[in-house]
């Protein structure tokens, strides 16, 4: 099993959109290493040829009649927003990302 490096954790934190300090990264590498070593045990189970299971219930698609139901008002939906402008969620710029 490949060892998880500090660079790996920094990359994963970037993917997960969590800014991390150097100290946090150092700590996380050690902790995740121990957890990964333990959960890697799943690979030793007799799983060859076993069908993966994503869900405990036999799921079928659920449809409902295409009828109009009352829904949240714009004001209610926006009530918890960090910033609102012209009855819309106001968000930081998305252009010129690094």
């Amino acid at each position: 099993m490949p060892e998880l490096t500090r660079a790996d954790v920094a990359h994963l934190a970037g993917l997960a959109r969590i800014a991390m300090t150097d100290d946090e990264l150092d700590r996380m590498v050690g902790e995740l290493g121990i957890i990964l070593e333990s959960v890697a045990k799943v690979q030793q189970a007799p799983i060859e040829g076993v069908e993966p299971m994503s869900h405990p219930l036999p799921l079928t698609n659920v449809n409902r009649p295409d009828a109009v139901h009352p829904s949240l008002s714009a004001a209610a939906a926006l009530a918890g927003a960090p910033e609102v402008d012209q009855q819309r969620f106001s968000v930081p710029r998305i252009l010129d990302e690094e």
Partner: protein
Amino acid sequence: MTDLIRLTADEMADALAAKDISSLELTRAHLERIAAVDGGVHAFLHVDGEGALAAARTIDERRSAGEALPRLAGVPIGVKDVMATKGLPTTCGSKILQGWVPPYDATLVTRLRQSGLPILGKLNMDEFAMGSSTEHSAYGPTHNPWDLERIPGGSGGGSAACVGSYQAPLAIGTDTGGSIRQPAAVTGTVGTKPTYGGVSRFGLVALASSLDQAGPCTRTVLDAALLHEVIGGYDPMDSTSIDAPVPPVVEAARRADVSGMRIGIVRELTGEGFQAGVQKRFDEAVEHLVDAGAEVVEVSCPSFTYALAAYYLILPSEASSNLARFDAMRYGLRVWPSDDASAEQVMAATRAAGFGDEVKRRIILGTYALSSGYYDAYYGSAQKVRRLIYDDFASAFERADVLVSPTSPTTAFRFGEKMTDPMSMYLQDIATIPANLAGVPGMSVPSGLADEDGLPAGFQILAPATRDERLYAVGAALEQRLDAAWGGPLLDRAPTLASAFSGAMGSSYADARDGEGR
């Protein structure tokens, strides 16, 4: 402590129906209890006295008008802070949702309101339900009513401690890997995780969608059944909701009949790794069930030894995906690292500031387990183990009607004991996790106090999917016999907190609390 709050929910319902007491009186008594002891216990993150009293008044008026009301109408309840409550703060124990007030009710909360249960407030939990001690709550831990220096279990420690300290007769919990059952075990209370799909998840802030299930936290098995009946049943708003009537749980709890029932002891979930006193109380409980007419069989579920590993891949994977919604755009915290920061930078800064260590650990772990190149080795393998566990349950239930084990391997530990070693914390759920992976229902009932530390231990019952009533039959039969042997409920032996809290100890706890939380 007034005698009123020590009644069971069933007895309260009787007294309300007979108009011996009013809901206003009953709700007020619980609010007084909260004011008296919750400084020391810290079960509540938010108390809604005004809302609860208003709901109680309405129920009293409707009852006076001669209206036929649901069984639990007027009996107050506490709700875990993971359920959306319209007009009431919902934080999931996280800074990222501090101050958020949902614009809608979870289906389960709607059912509580429709059934006339006054909601006393929102209950503390490990952040986003990740943990076994409530030490991961951003608002400070809940304390175990049996010993305020110890953990009340988790993630639903607030729910268990709330009913265990008579701050409410009923509470709602959620169980993703044991978060209803393990807190019940270490606080000497009762908790049920219904069959997956038995209770709607609409409005429950998702941790791991294929594992999460809400259920009742109470002091007696019958009370759990009464609450189960209120919150259970089909909900078109949840695509995984089971379209079938709620199993006959109340009838089973009242009959408490286990004669001829085959009780399966799971070899992999007893003995080694379980505290001696916990194991001893478990063995005695099995004897009581035999006396009550049950038959004992030993079953083996070899794949259970891989359950913890599979769970700590599946849960973080689903959580890393579910928690992506906390992006600082539509609700919750928004942190600007600089004035001209981009959306991505705001997101990263917000999640850094808003999530605690355990949440970050699990998100990173899940991101890793799902990343290309590692998916098959980790998440894929875990899903195959999940199938093996499901199959193990299926064969075990051919030989036994229910399976039993100790709920948690130990009694309540001291604060800080497992915080530096995440794996040792994860082991708390070793016996409860298989049920979530397979979707089967489970319950924890008190089995007594462990000899070595005098703290409560729990007895876990598992039943086949949709046969939740069997939990109640076995739980009620055991409760009946143990209460008779003890000369009363186990909780009668817990410290009365009023005295414990009146001194300096209480104020130091109060100081340590987060002011915003209340």
